């Protein structure tokens, strides 16, 4: 077996296990953080402080039947969870977890990640359409409109960083933050990116596609068992991707104060920063009410995009002058 192929297989296994592990850690974190925000103990039953609860939940979901509703498009209905899950795994291939830990180093890794995360919209569209349920369809329409709109300010805010570094390579961008993090010079871009990221991953206060008080569960209303858990995994994987891009582009990636951990220092710093941002996402979700759909759209088109454009213009002028 050629060594390159072996390397790819190991990488694939690692990436998929990381996605599962991330969903477990994040699921536990979300439930524990929400519990503490709401003054209750949260998970306590399975294992010490409920750490094994998510494993039990996973086993339960695997054991459940995937109910395919009457009148749905059976092929598309089964396809959608996979279509949602598969592209979410791919960004992990190019994310630099530390100086050395990166499976493939591409010159266009940032574009690759953005392209992969965009496929999720198609999966949601397929899921909502195939379910043959009006509530699912509602969720889908909202989700697609929201994802497509918020991709614009997201990309615009990232472009200002690209202008400064003139590279799409993630390691290159981290290397460019040798003396200071880009959040110091681009705070507006960071805020715009983070808000758009919340909207892209359908997180509160922009969780309209799955607004449970209006649409029960949005596009995955009809999914059960592993069908649902694939969407769940994809959501958490996407959250991780969004936060890792924010970490790499604005917070210096794996760079940090040297710790006596050798090569692991980078990974520790990277994970700390990413999970710090994920904590903010969870915090926002359990504190704020949900915005209305027209407010969501007008916020994007009237505030985020003009500010992102202005930010890009100023960055371009400053970069040109320097």
């Amino acid at each position, binding site marked *: 077996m050629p060594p390159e192929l072996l390397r790819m297989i190991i990488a694939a296994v690692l990436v998929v296990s990381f996605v599962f592990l991330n969903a477990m850690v994040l699921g536990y974190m979300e439930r524990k953080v*929400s519990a503490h*925000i*709401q*003054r*209750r103990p949260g998970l306590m039953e399975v294992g010490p402080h409920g750490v094994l609860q998510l494993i039990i939940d996973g086993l339960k979901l695997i054991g459940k039947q995937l109910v395919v509703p009457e009148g749905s498009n059976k092929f598309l209905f089964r396809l959608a969870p996979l279509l949602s899950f598969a592209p979410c795994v791919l960004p992990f291939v190019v994310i630099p977890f530390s100086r050395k830990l990166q499976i493939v180093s591409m010159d266009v890794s940032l574009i690759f990640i953005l392209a992969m995360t965009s496929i999720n919209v198609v999966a949601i569209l397929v899921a909502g359409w195939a379910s043959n349920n*009006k*509530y699912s369809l*509602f969720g889908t329409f909202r989700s697609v409109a929201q994802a497509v709109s918020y991709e614009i300010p997201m990309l615009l805010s990232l472009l200002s960083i690209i202008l400064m570094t003139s590279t799409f390579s993630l390691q290159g961008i981290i290397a460019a933050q040798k003396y200071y993090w880009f959040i110091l010079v681009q705070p507006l871009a960071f805020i715009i990116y983070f808000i758009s990221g919340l909207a892209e991953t359908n997180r*509160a*206060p922009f*969780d309209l596609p799955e*607004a*449970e*008080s*209006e649409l*029960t569960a949005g596009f995955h209303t009809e999914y059960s068992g592993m069908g649902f858990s694939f969407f769940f995994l994809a959501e958490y994987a996407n959250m991780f991707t969004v936060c890792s891009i924010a970490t790499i582009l604005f917070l210096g990636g794996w760079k940090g104060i040297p710790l006596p951990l050798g090569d692991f220092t980078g990974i520790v710093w990277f994970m700390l920063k990413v999970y710090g941002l994920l904590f903010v996402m969870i915090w926002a979700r*359990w*504190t*704020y*009410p*949900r*915005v*209305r*759909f*027209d*407010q969501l759209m*007008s916020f994007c088109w009237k505030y985020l995009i003009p500010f992102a454009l202005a930010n890009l213009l100023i960055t371009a002028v400053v970069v040109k002058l320097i």
Partner: protein
Amino acid sequence: METAQLNLEPATDIQHDNRYYLNMGPQHPSTHGVLRVLLEMDGEYILDPQPVLGYGHRMHEKMAEHKNWMAFMPNTGRMDYAAALPYNHGFVSLFERLCGIEVPERAEYIRVITSELNRLVSHHLWLGAFLLDLGAFTPILYTFIDREKVLDILEDITGSRLTYCYFRVGGVCKDIDDKFVTRTREFIKYQRERFDVYNKLVTGNIIFLKRVEGVGVISKDMALRYGVTGPVARGSGINYDVRKNEPYSVYPRFDFEIPLGENGDSLDRYMVRLNEMEQSLRIIEQALDQLPAGPFLGKVPKKLKMPVGDSSFAVEAARGELTYYMVSGGGDIPYRLKIRVPSYSNLSILPELGQGILLSDLVTAMGSLDLVIPEIDR
């Protein structure tokens, strides 16, 4: 104030091929019970919401025609499960009025204190559920902490936490003790501090304000036409509260205000209810100060001999005016009992309220009406 409103004008002459029906309920998470609303929709805009009732109908009024007052008492606690004591209150007072039964003063004070505590419980529940409708999950757990405290106090005295059967014709079934008085006083102090938490968590939140301001506007005229009562009517600026306008029990002895809104939108109804909680605390405080000694249950014959005739009694329940009307043919069993529940008229405003608004706004508007379905389907 930004509102989303569909222009309904062209609906008469343009062929609307995009219209479709959406069935909201009876198991929808934001209808709080078994209410079904049939929505005729165009995109996300609602053209015509029609409530469909009857999923929880238990024939309470018919049951009353076969039972004496004591046998019907538990039924009164099962109509509005969120605030059952005013239902107890109205029902026993109806018999007292018809038969001319004197109620000891202490019993009246106990009735007022427990009813107001129950109103607080109901508003706690509403506050949490309303915010849940808006997508904020956390406030309900905060209000439920406070709600539990009141329920514990009430449980000690009445023996139940939700479906009370505490009042009796001629008084109440169990006297309150010093422990109750101290605990209630402690709770009043605690609850006053909690309002700051509510305001920080909810009232000052920009997303919350954007979601409720100008949403579900009920004009004064509209409120009068549909006969809505309670906080919904007061949110529209109608100064009507049975406790003031048609005083019963010992309410005239207390100094309290009726909070009013101006615009009649969801925010006004929210503010009215929040202020009402404060006013309830004031009433309880004064009642505890003035609490007289004496018997808690007057002398009432075992088998009530009602005169032939009719009688009606209105109380201010947590959701508005609750009226019992009874026709008696003599004996101890009513010939007919009619119950006018506040939520029924408050719901009847929904088809007009929901025209041309977004689905999300309908959920907000319905939440701000504070509907309890079992009292509509009684």
